[in-house]
């Protein structure tokens, strides 16, 4: 159920995304989704890649500070109110969404959102009870 995501600390300066992107390209690691959270000074580059452990290894070997975290890939009906239904399932549970972003590929007529929760197991339980579909890693990467 849980998807591995790699996060990277980058300074907010021209050219600072190029080096890690080039390294991953050289090693044949494909970036499937990417989200940059930034402040004026620095940012966090979050990526879902074809081989997360390999990517983390390469980046660390080259001196980057990378962290592998677990996120959930959630199927969301692609019509008005689709997102509201999904997050509504968590209302009143005390489960907090730390951040979220959209996965660029669709699955049939469904959109896919990536969620990061402080307590992913509790989130999985509540979503499954509400009939929300969560994607396995291989399903997501084969889209």
């Amino acid at each position, binding site marked *: 159920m849980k998807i591995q*995501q790699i*996060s990277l*600390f*980058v*300074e907010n300066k021209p050219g*600072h995304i190029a080096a890690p992107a080039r390294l991953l390209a050289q090693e044949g690691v494909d970036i499937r989704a990417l989200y940059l*959270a*930034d*402040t004026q*000074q*620095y940012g*966090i580059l*979050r990526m879902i890649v074809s081989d997360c452990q390999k990517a983390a290894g390469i980046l*660390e*070997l080259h*001196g*980057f*500070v*990378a*962290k592998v*975290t677990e996120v959930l890939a959630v199927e969301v009906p692609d019509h008005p109110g689709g997102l509201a239904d999904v997050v509504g399932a968590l209302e009143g549970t005390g489960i907090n969404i*730390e*951040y979220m972003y959209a996965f660029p590929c669709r699955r049939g007529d469904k959109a896919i959102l990536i969620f*990061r929760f402080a307590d992913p197991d509790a989130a999985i339980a509540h979503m499954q009870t509400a009939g929300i579909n969560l994607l396995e890693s291989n399903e997501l990467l084969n889209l």
Partner: protein
Amino acid sequence: MNSILETGVTDCHPASLPDYVPVSELRELQLIRLQAVVTRAWRRVKLFRSRMTERGLAPEDIRSLEDIAKLPFTQKSDLRDTYPFGLFASPMKDVVRLHASSGTTGKPIVVAYTKEDVEVWTSVVVRCLAGCGLNRGDIVQIAYGYGLFTGGLGAHYGAEGLGAAVVPTSGGNADRQIMLMKDFGVTAMCCTPTYFLHLIERAAELGVDMKELSLKAGVFGAEPWSESLRQHIERASGIEAFDIYGLSEIIGPGVGCECRRHQGLHIFEDHFYPEIVDPATGTPLPDGDEGELVLTTLSKQAIPMIRYRTRDITALLPGTCDCGRTLRRIGRIGRRSDDMLIIRGVNVFPSQVESALLEIEGVLPHYQILLTRQQGLDQMEVQIEVTSQMFNDKIGALQRLHEKLQGALDHVLGIRVRVALVEAHSLERSQGKAKRVIDRRTL
């Protein structure tokens, strides 16, 4: 050697016996040697003789150890001004070695050794390493720079003199250093503390756990480092870290070193006479008071150094060490009187920045201080590399860390500084001494 047996010391290395000489005998020896070295310098070094004459002093005026306070100071500029050989007390035919400082500004300073000087140097480094619990059978890797810098060769001769197996890697090439530490089963490392930090960091990246290696001791010197840094190194690498002190002008590494009690650094007083003076006035200070360390070489032939102003700030520790050595101790050098920065009128020492960073749990990053002047006002920026322990993939957590660092620095320094979080490995790494301050202030 009866007197040593009387001290009840049983487990010391034979080379360490002079460390336990009764104080009265040590003081007698120091006075005899002081009188001899003053006479030698007076006869052979023009600068010293003229300074003595100016004060109406002759070597015979030194009748007790207290009389040392009458003698003129020597400072680094004297070595520069007499470049290259002006302070030599031995003819070149008696000199067997020349070293020089790295000389970042202008001419370097030159130091020289006779055969006997090299023997004394070796013997004190042997005593340092023996005091750290090292012995024949140990494998000692020396990652101080070899060459004109005294660190590499000084440690090398001492480790060899001890009978240890020496791996003379010199500085640089961290990956190879780590490979040899692992493959050779190196038991002790000699280098600067910041270089060892770099090795710890690099080993982690290469997937080598320092704690799994045979490494048991590190003898670190050539730059001031804090107690918190020691704790960090010991925790991260599982070794016992020792502080060794020395300076080329006096002899090189081996002027003093910690023993396994880690209660200050024993000065090898039979060769180097320590005093503490007020850095502003030059007045001698009593034991326990913090001031500038002044050293006189008691046995050096090629360049006798009389009352050399080290610029290192420390204190002579009162009382004796539990190890039984009679040698006096200095506190660890936290700062130098000349690395003080004046920022908007406030005195700031780089070591304060280090201790502020260390106060924050889990944070011992590489850092650099950048000084600039904007519209006539000094600006201080502390650039801190984000390590994997500090990194969190939530912006809010990074911002909280940023604020925490900012708060700790403002609190310790008493001035507002700008804190910048920068990428790992983006600051220049030290192969030798750390470059902590970049001053771009122009008038």
